[in-house]
């Protein structure tokens, strides 16, 4: 049996949240480190256990320095659907690969994790003892072992239907944990400067990973708000730019978003947020600017554009231009100048965003953005398209019974030739997007229907 190249098998233990977002995150990160997603598993779906083949442990470690979707990675030594299958699989694992970690000068410990079932201490010890046949020559050290081995037992995903025996058992050498602790340390609850729609820290990091952001990249967020996505990008070493049409938000003025706070303090702006996390050196600039009328000179400046555009519900969608539309409750401060804004049709916004990305991204650079969707009418054709950008992934997050948003990741694969060349192509394609224009209407119509229904049932 010929081996194409030496690939080793690893077991990824995934976190059980944002399920659809996990595979694109891992794939994007592997390609960032020169690896590829190779697996013999057919589907991943809901399972937290993923077996991957990678050419080196370095790639595995680099992956874990970035991922917030994976909890841990193990060098897989054996697995099976029963203890017997596991032991026989372990006996087939090349001894020369085991020896470096089991020799007499080393210290180790064996842990056991069970998923969807609790074992007694006695049961755990029994399973560990059953592995005595492995050539462990080192000393057990429970406090600070050099090597940690783990038995992982999979009892399925249904807490109401726990099997007597596990569906799968894995044994491997622990290599590294992922970055899930970032979710807590960067939590919006602790952040100095927040807005009404500040994104959950976990999703911010997922977006940055989908965007393949790396050290020394220049990342831009055209709808920057309070800068959450810039913080996540800066954490991984990217230098950041942001723009927003809202003067007060960019300057950190106006009413606070925190419950018991009336006005924002002097320490509340994007730069201060980066400073809070020791990331101020990555702050390039933020500007008050209309994303539909960008102020950049001609050129490809951005390695990634990572953004959460307004959906028109919690934040108003605005742009400058003449129209007799009454702006919604904009705080006016003496210094600020907020020109008359007209309602920015969502489909225009995505058209502008994709065109802008196609023009200003470096070749190979990525655009990552949220697309709001009225679920009952969603079809794949609705996802905005551009001849220079290739669709990499499309992940759904449900927001309510009839709305969701999709995280769209696109990669620039073709040089941008000419602005006018694309406009006729795209305007035809975007006509079916009335869904986006009336996203706000549909969202509120759903709410209205529900209220009417509740009132009816109260009367009965």
């Amino acid at each position, binding site marked *: 049996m010929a081996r194409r190249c030496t690939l080793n098998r690893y077991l990824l233990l995934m976190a059980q949240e944002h399920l659809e977002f996990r595979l694109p995150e891992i794939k994007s990160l592997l390609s960032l480190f020169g690896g590829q997603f190779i697996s013999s598993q057919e589907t991943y779906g809901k399972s937290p256990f993923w077996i991957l083949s990678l050419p080196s442990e370095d790639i595995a470690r680099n992956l874990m320095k970035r991922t917030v979707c994976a909890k841990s990675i193990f060098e897989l030594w054996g697995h099976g659907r029963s203890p017997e299958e596991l032991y026989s699989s372990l006996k087939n694992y090349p001894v020369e690969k085991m020896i470096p970690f089991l020799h007499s000068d080393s210290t180790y410990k064996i842990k056991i994790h069970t998923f969807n079932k609790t074992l007694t201490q006695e049961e755990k010890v029994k399973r560990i003892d059953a592995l005595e046949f492995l050539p462990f020559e080192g000393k057990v050290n429970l406090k600070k072992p050099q090597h940690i081995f783990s038995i992982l037992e999979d009892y399925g995903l249904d807490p109401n239907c726990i099997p007597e025996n596990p569906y799968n058992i894995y044994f491997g050498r622990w290599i590294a944990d992922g970055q899930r602790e970032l979710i807590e340390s960067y939590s919006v609850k602790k952040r100095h400067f927040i807005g009404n729609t500040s994104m959950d820290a976990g999703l911010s990091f997922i977006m940055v990973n989908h965007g393949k952001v790396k*050290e*020394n990249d220049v990342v831009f967020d055209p709808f920057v708000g309070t800068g959450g996505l810039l913080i996540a990008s800066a954490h991984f070493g990217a*230098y950041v*730019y942001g*723009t927003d*049409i809202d*003067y007060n938000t*960019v*300057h950190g003025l106006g009413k606070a978003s925190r419950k018991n706070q009336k006005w924002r303090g002097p320490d509340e702006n994007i730069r201060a947020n980066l400073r809070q996390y020791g990331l101020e*050196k990555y702050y*390039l*600039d*933020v*500007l*008050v*600017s*209309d994303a539909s*009328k*960008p*102020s*950049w*000179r*001609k*050129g490809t*400046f951005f390695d990634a554009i990572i953004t959460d555009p307004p959906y028109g519900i919690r934040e108003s969608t605005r742009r*400058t*231009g*003449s129209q007799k539309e009454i702006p919604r409750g904009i705080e006016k401060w003496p*210094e600020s*100048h*907020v*020109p*008359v804004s007209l309602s920015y049709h969502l489909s225009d916004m995505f058209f502008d965003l994709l065109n802008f990305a196609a023009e200003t991204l470096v070749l190979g650079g990525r655009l990552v953005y949220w697309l709001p969707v009225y679920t009952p009418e969603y079809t794949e054709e609705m996802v905005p398209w551009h001849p220079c950008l290739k669709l990499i992934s499309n992940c759904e997050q449900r927001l309510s019974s009839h709305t969701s948003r999709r995280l769209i990741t696109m990669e620039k694969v073709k040089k941008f030739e000419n602005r006018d060349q694309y406009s006729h192509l795209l305007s035809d394609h975007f006509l079916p997007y009335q869904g986006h224009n009336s996203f706000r209407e549909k969202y509120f119509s759903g709410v209205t229907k529900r209220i009417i229904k509740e009132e009816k049932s109260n009367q009965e």
Partner: protein
Amino acid sequence: MKLLTHNLLSSHVRGVGPRGFPLRLQATEVRINPVEFNPDFVARMIPKVEWAALLEAADTLHLVEVPKEPIEGYENDETFLRKMHHVLLEVDVLEGTLQCPESGRLFPISRGIPNMLLNDEETET
């Protein structure tokens, strides 16, 4: 506003096109902000810089020791990179204006943040 940013900005007043670059810088308050030197990042930015515009802006701010052009082998020249690092990233214009060279329109900079918003009539269709 950093000089790197100034170097990337252009006026988008209707009809102005590429003649909107570079914006004429005028500063009433400037601060020197020490930023950790990262030679790899600075080296990456060098090819993006429009040198004439950078020199003009540096001159307006009376900066000294500004390299006149990228030298050969700049990627490994620490002296050059440190000078560029200072000019591009450590000089911060806090208050001032950016002026469209074609239309004369002024964009204010306040608290280090440029305001590029245009009025209805000025916007490019």
